[in-house]
């Protein structure tokens, strides 16, 4: 396995989509190649950072303002009553 092939498969690897034999091959490659090991670690960090970003946004992005929510609830009720 070359380094280029290894990097092409990193996401599939993290997704658990690499067949067993090839998985072993990637694992062995990462033992002998520190660059690919670093690449894999950094890709994991990318995923973690995006996840943290989601948590940050969850704290920061508020729900609908009460006026808009009120309108939606009214729309919902009048529609359901009209059934």
């Amino acid at each position, binding site marked *: 396995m070359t380094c280029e092939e290894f990097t*092409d498969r990193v996401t599939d690897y993290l997704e658990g989509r690499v067949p067993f034999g090839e998985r072993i091959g990637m694992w062995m490659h990462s033992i002998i190649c520190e660059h690919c090991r670093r690449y894999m670690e950094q890709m994991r960090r990318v995923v973690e950072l995006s996840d943290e970003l989601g948590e940050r946004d969850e704290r920061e992005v508020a729900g609908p303002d009460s006026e808009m929510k009120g309108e939606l609830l009214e729309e919902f009720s009048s529609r359901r*009553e009209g059934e």
Partner: protein
Amino acid sequence: MDDDSDCLDRLLAGDEEAFSELIDDYHAEMIRVAEAFVDDRSTAEESVQETWTAVIEGLDDFEGRSSLKTWIFSILTNQARKRGEKEAREPNWSELSEEPLDREVTEDANRFNAEGRWSKPPVPWSVDPEEKTLRREMLSVVDEAIDDLPRRQRVVVTMRDVEGWSSDEVCDVLDISNGNQRVLLHRGRKKLRRVLEEVFGDVGGAT
């Protein structure tokens, strides 16, 4: 799924409380997902509002073949997609889905030699993960880098990695294959890694 059908029953019965809970559960997430399709916040908010109206109108026709979440976000995706295409910053979604997916895979190719070994290996990041200011800085770099991704990559990375959806949910809502989804995810993550490397790469410490 039981929760889902329970919720649906209450919605169909006109239970305002159930609709209120639905809004609380999904509204903010819908805005974040819509923002991956369109250029600005107010357009994203409009798409979300339209989606709620479509949900109210469409409840009777919802057959429960997908989860409520998948149904709601599919409507949102269609609304936001249309608006994003009107803004026409990028070629539209359907054109892009015809694009051969292997074209971009070797964009890091100049970092490998003819034998496929690293000629420009990844540079370590000079980041102390315990350092709060730096962490915040990294987050805002990732935030901006996601905004700069091509739309399909941006949407998939947002749903999978930022919002934490499963690959099945993403494929259902976007109506794409799992393989296709993984390619978009891989390309997006690769670009984010490169941007982080450019900003935080510790060239002096490279081995």
